[in-house]
């Protein structure tokens, strides 16, 4: 599957395209198929995303898992600061990245 990501223009937070809006959680990301470029152009124009790009991902029962480790780290947070990730209470969250 192909999903969209970028950073929120105002806050810089990592965001994922849900099909209608942007979410902080990669689990919410929607498969955009071949429409990624068109969505990004519209969203960039609407100033809702900065530096958007298309990511190859694997569909899993827990939601999309980006193919590249860089995007998995973006999705969770720095592996060396679990307290600053999106899942600070889950000691196994880092396993998903590696």
């Amino acid at each position: 599957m192909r999903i969209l990501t970028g950073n929120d223009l105002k806050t810089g937070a990592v965001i994922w395209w849900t099909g209608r809006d942007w979410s902080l959680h990669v689990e919410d990301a929607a498969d955009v198929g071949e429409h990624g470029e068109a969505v990004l152009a519209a969203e960039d124009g609407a100033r809702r995303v900065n530096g958007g790009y298309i990511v190859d991902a694997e569909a899993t029962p827990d939601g999309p898992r980006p193919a590249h480790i860089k995007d998995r780290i973006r999705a969770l947070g720095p592996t060396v600061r679990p307290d600053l990730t999106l899942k600070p209470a889950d000691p196994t969250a880092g396993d998903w990245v590696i």
Partner: protein
Amino acid sequence: MYRYDQYDQAMVDARVEEFRDQTRRRIAGDINDDQFKPLRLKNGLYLQLHAYMLRVAIPYGTLNSVQMRKLAHIARTYDRGYGHFTTRQNLQYHWIKLEQAPDILAELATVEMHAIQTSGESIRNISADQYAGAAADEICDPRPWAELLRQATTFHPEFSYLPRKFKIAVISSKEDRAALRWHDCALRIVRNEAGEEGFEVYAGGGMGRTPFIAFPIRDFCPANQIFSYLQAILRVWNLHARRDNIHKQRMKILVHELGEEEFRRQVEEEFQTFLALGTDFPQAEYDRIAAYFTPPPFETGLSEEIDRSDPEFALWVDRQTVRHKAPGYAIANISLKPVGGIGGDVTAEQMEVVADLAERYSFDDVRVTHAQNLVLPHVRKQDLYAVWGALAAAGLADANLDLVTDVIACPGLDYCTLANARSIPVAQKIQQRFADMDRQLDIGELKVKISGCINACGHHHAGQIGILGVDRKGTENYQLLLGGSGAEDTSQAKITGPGFDEDGVVDAVERTVERYRELREPGERFLDTYRRVGLDPFKEAIYG
């Protein structure tokens, strides 16, 4: 230290308001990202993996307590409670919101700080010896020259759109604590046979994808002509650089392609042009700037004795303190490399502890080192125990300066959008592997430096043991390098062979260290043994 005059303050304040307007227009949609990106980069604002990142300039690595407390305040108010000291003596915040960035710059301006020229194709923060003004082995304090060059090159119209970034370092001792010859332009203050002060000048150094050690371009440039000479170097590069190829834009590439002799010839020709223009610093201007760096009022008649009855304190004194030029004083290094921690990271609370200690015990002076540690440059020996106690209470009293756990590491793939692999976890695993203090002390000086990509922010080319993270078909892979140095015996590390995964490279480091312990002769550091026996015995240990 230097204090802003009305012109400095007016320029920085105006720059903050200019950026506030640029940010407002970006958020309002009046300008797009292609238009905004070069503007934010000129103010040190990057977009990294998780958020915007702001790189704050710390000229020649010198801070006072008010500035350090402001950095703590910003960390607490606008970031996530910490900052990261870098290998260019700067500080980075990794969780910045664009809409708050102008407010942060305004806060910095209130304490005479900014983020100008910490990014982009400009002359970057000029670095210097972290022991400047305190070192027993220096000819003079190099910071007045660093400050003069900082002022002369900031917003300089000819050097505002350089082919690429340009890094300068200034020292004034034989011992090199600033990785001098890894800079585009390296200046070492010397005295000639007549006793006149001047500069030994090196040009064309740099790490990154294509590493070069700066070559000695001039043995002696009179001090009152150094700005002409620097301008001549910059002009030759600016005129002839390969602006068509991002990988060939740095000055080191031009020096390599022209050859040292031809580059020197062209610089000398331009030098004469600049000398005739009379743009060098008048003596009165040097004197005005130097007055800001007048040595603090050191007490006389102080005791040299240190009560070493507490063994942990005695160890810290042995590892972390360095001889000071004034009797009864010491230079105290503060390790930011706790085993299993994140090198260079400091919490807001720790910054405040250091600020308090600087104010109380070090003439209100703190330094940042390119090895991502801090320094209290002027501590009375009789105060060292109190300083150590306060540092220990704040988790800042590790005694590992220049030991195997004092690892330099870039933020790597945990934070950086350019990175191919994580650096920090590798540093942590090496620290944990060698955590035993007796073992560290037995190994002795061993500088490990890790970069998460070929841009080499972690100085792996200069590592006695260097590690480079690469992307190998989507997985992290680490190349091991040996034999580098950023000191006065500058050398470039060599790759040992095929790379490793994260645990594999830690094992390889351990095999390298153990082979060193087998081969070393009395008094030899790792680097000495490596240079004596060469790479092969280590390759055999690493790869079998």
